[in-house]
């Protein structure tokens, strides 16, 4: 599929950047005139992925989170990458209610939310090198 537009964003893994990151992605994809629900779905999925990078990837140490968003016709593809500790067992991490940090009162629903709100979610991770979450969603025709 031809890429119609691309943007790349890099920021420090500080929690105050979570709202900044989801707002930037929402502003970028607004050019496709998504519905309010479609826009909210993408914002929520981005928020989950960025939160995972900050809490689990870097465990609140400072690192860099990178977001690349591509527009291909009515499809958006969003890649969120950290260079943190990686995920040991992706299958287990994706299970609903699983959390490696119950002491933080995490709901363990981050991946479930991403999978519910986006059409596709791919996770690739290498221990001590980092994690990339690639998500796609196709918006309804105008």
């Amino acid at each position: 599929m031809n890429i119609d537009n691309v943007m790349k964003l890099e920021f420090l893994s500080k929690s105050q950047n979570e709202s900044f990151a989801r707002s930037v992605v929402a502003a970028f994809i607004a050019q496709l005139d998504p519905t309010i629900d479609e826009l909210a779905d993408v914002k929520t999925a981005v928020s989950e992925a960025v939160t995972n990078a900050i809490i689990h990837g870097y465990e609140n140490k400072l690192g860099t989170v990178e977001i690349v968003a591509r527009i291909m016709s009515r499809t958006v593809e969003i890649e969120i990458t950290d260079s943190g500790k990686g995920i040991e067992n992706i299958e287990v991490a994706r299970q609903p209610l699983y959390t490696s940090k119950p002491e933080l009162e995490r709901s363990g629903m981050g991946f479930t939310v991403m999978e519910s709100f986006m059409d596709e979610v791919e996770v690739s991770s290498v221990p001590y090198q980092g994690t990339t979450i690639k998500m796609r969603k196709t918006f309804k025709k105008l």
Partner: protein
Amino acid sequence: MNVTFESIGNKLVIRINGDIDHHTCEAIRQRIDNEISKKNPKGIIFDMENVGFMDSSGIGVIIGRFKQISEKGGATSMINVKPQIRRVYEICGLQKIIGVYDSLERAVNGMA
């Protein structure tokens, strides 16, 4: 982000103003827990009218407070839930434990 409270009988209404995400949830949690230990309510009602965005970090906050209140035999409910928040609420299965009401009055009476 700020959190305000109103007591109606033995129920505590919790009004959160702003986004609920991982960045804001710790402060929200502390404010609510302080108020719960001061007032010892029999039920809590989250008024979500001024919450523009919530992700699963917010679900963690709500479930945590639900557990505290239900240990004492009380109920938790929500009002003024916008569609984005409702979808997160449903995906996370909260409808099984936390009722959503269309007005404060109904929430107060429904939890009696």
